[in-house]
């Protein structure tokens, strides 16, 4: 689960990592008070989970209230329905640094990634100047050791005062990383201010979904999710991503889903959404179809090949969902695996035409999507 910037900064704050003074607002009428609290110049930061906020104009530096109110009004009025803005003091920046923790799957360790060259384009830097990125493996049975943090700090070329502060910061960041079962915990950029303080300018945190039971204090406020289908999926815990194509996918398993995704594209089709119908969700046909129907797609394509996720149970669920929800668009099924014979029978009895070959099902779905378009 990805957290919003303001949530990540709350975590930093409780861990003793300095953050800029800021205030979160949910409505335009909260802006003036926030500007009084924060002062000018300040930065208005849209709280959305997608990347590239700067390039998309979702982060604005403003020098006075007039310009500030204008931007707040504009951002809240955007079609993507931003639910909150972080009004944040502008920091006197001398230098920017990148610091993160993630996992190294090969060695079974945590990995500290630090670059004193900043993180504006860390991926490019990784390819072009890899020596400027310090990667340090951390035995998670022992945890990050002070000597490791200290060594990293001096490898960054920091002066002793900054190095001591950076060492402490890295140790705090690692503790958070472990405490919250993070896949990724990142400060980017980490500001070194002109008065030589370390301040987290922005933060990313992705918490391992499988560990969420240990973090009941953390959640994405569902009210902050704009899209109705996304909200429904989030409520049910069903993995779901909406795109802007024609075909709703209700597939089982990440591998089969991405394969179907590819096959649809090979046939010239486009995807309206991904929805995980496998694993623990195979009995949720009703809810899954309800979500797909909220998406402006033209066809629903159901592809499975399950073992524990029994084909007959899935087929039965689909039949019930169709009978109840009376979908306004065609449904293509290709359901195989455990008890597939019974599944085919169930679908046939309900008047559906169950297919048995994935490529054939994809071709039919793409054809139907095109027909509907005409």
């Amino acid at each position, binding site marked *: 689960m990805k957290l919003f910037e303001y949530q990540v900064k709350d975590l930093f704050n409780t861990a003793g990592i300095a953050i800029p003074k800021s205030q979160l607002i949910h409505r335009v009428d909260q802006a003036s008070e926030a500007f009084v609290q924060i002062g000018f110049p300040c930065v208005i930061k849209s709280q959305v989970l997608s*990347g590239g906020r700067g390039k998309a104009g979702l982060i604005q530096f403003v020098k006075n209230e007039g310009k500030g109110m204008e931007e707040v009004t504009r951002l809240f009025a955007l079609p993507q329905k931003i639910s909150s803005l972080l009004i944040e003091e502008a920091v006197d920046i001398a230098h920017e640094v990148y610091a993160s923790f*993630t*996992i190294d*799957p*090969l*060695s*079974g*360790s*945590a990995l500290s*990634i630090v670059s004193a060259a900043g993180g504006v384009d860390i*991926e490019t830097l*990784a*390819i072009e100047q890899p020596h400027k990125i310090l990667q340090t493996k951390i*035995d*998670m*049975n022992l945890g990050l050791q002070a000597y490791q943090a200290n060594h990293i700090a001096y490898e960054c070329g920091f002066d002793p005062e900054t190095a001591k502060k950076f060492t402490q910061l890295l140790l705090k960041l690692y503790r958070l990383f*472990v405490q919250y*079962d993070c*896949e*990724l915990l990142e400060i980017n950029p980490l500001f070194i201010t002109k008065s030589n303080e370390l301040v987290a300018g922005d933060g990313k945190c*992705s918490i*391992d979904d*499988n*560990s969420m*039971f*240990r973090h009941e204090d953390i959640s994405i406020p569902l009210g902050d999710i704009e899209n109705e289908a996304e909200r429904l999926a989030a409520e049910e815990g069903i*993995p779901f*991503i909406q*795109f802007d194509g024609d075909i709703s996918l209700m*597939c*089982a*398993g*990440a*591998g*089969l*889903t*991405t*394969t179907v*995704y*590819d*096959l649809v*594209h*090979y046939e010239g089709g486009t995807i309206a959404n*991904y929805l*995980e119908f*496998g*694993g*623990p969700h195979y009995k949720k046909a009703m809810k899954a179809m309800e979500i797909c129907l909220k998406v402006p797609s033209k066809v629903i394509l159901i592809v*499975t*090949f*399950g*073992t*524990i*996720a029994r084909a007959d149970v899935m087929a039965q669920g689909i039949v019930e969902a169709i009978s109840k929800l009376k979908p306004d668009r065609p449904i293509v099924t290709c359901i*195989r*695996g*455990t008890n*597939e014979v019974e599944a085919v029978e169930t679908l046939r009895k309900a008047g559906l035409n169950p297919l048995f070959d*994935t*490529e054939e099902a994809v071709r039919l779905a793409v054809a139907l999507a095109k027909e509907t378009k005409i």
Partner: protein
Amino acid sequence: MSIFIDRNTRVLVQGITGSEGSFWTKHMIDLGTQVICGVTPAKEGQTIHDIPVYHSVERALRNHVVDASMIFVPPKLTKDAVFEALANGIKKIVTMADGIPLFDMVAIRHAALEHNALVIGGNTSGVISPEEAMMGSFPYWIQRVYKRGNIGVMTRSGSLTNEVTAMIVKRGYGVSTLIGVGGDPVPATRFSEMLPYYQQDEQTEAVVIIGELGGTMEEEVADAMEKGIFTKPLVAFLGGRTAPKGQKMGHAGAIITGGKGAVEDKIEALTKAGALVADRPSNVGILLEQLNVSKK
């Protein structure tokens, strides 16, 4: 000869009395697997399918000699179960659960390396040598998918594996040993670590890997081919060529790669190493034919 398991492998089942454990133990036995004892705390003295159950692995090993452990416990208990098996000297372990916390998988991987043990999983259907033995939950009774043959299969997926394997069988091939390394971002054992076993296995004439976007496991396979560690024909199927970047579909092992792991990179590395890469499941068998892999 199959790899990892065969009819002589003496298997202990951890979590044998649970509904999944009990159900799949029966199937494992029916296929020919030698399940000799099971462990569930508080259930010592019971039997499941005539197999004796013990409170702990250590207590089971007082009465049985065991080669491998099959773990059917829930995700939150998996780390403890794997640690128990490792601490008791078991060197072949398959753990199935989907939903194991990431840091638990990191600890499992770390411990497996320290113990020099082969731990397969989590989030996998396990290991099967069709018509021989299995540790896991494969619908081996669907013969258009699980037919014995000379193709080794390694996979990160579940449903997709059935899809691809069905296509291989449709083309007239069969499978020697299929190993699901699992769909988690940190599998306990990686493709490249199993390659030497396929290289050595006489039954295996070629290997198919079913990869995914994310991670570097496919690149490591290419590397092993470049280094001559694996020299048999290899066909890869990789989904996710057209997938939008930065999105994580299900539990694909995508996220944790830092710039690496795009499907194009994998295709390039594998092709350079001499592998053929299929763009759709139905092409996998065709590519095996191109490599002159026999259909015996």
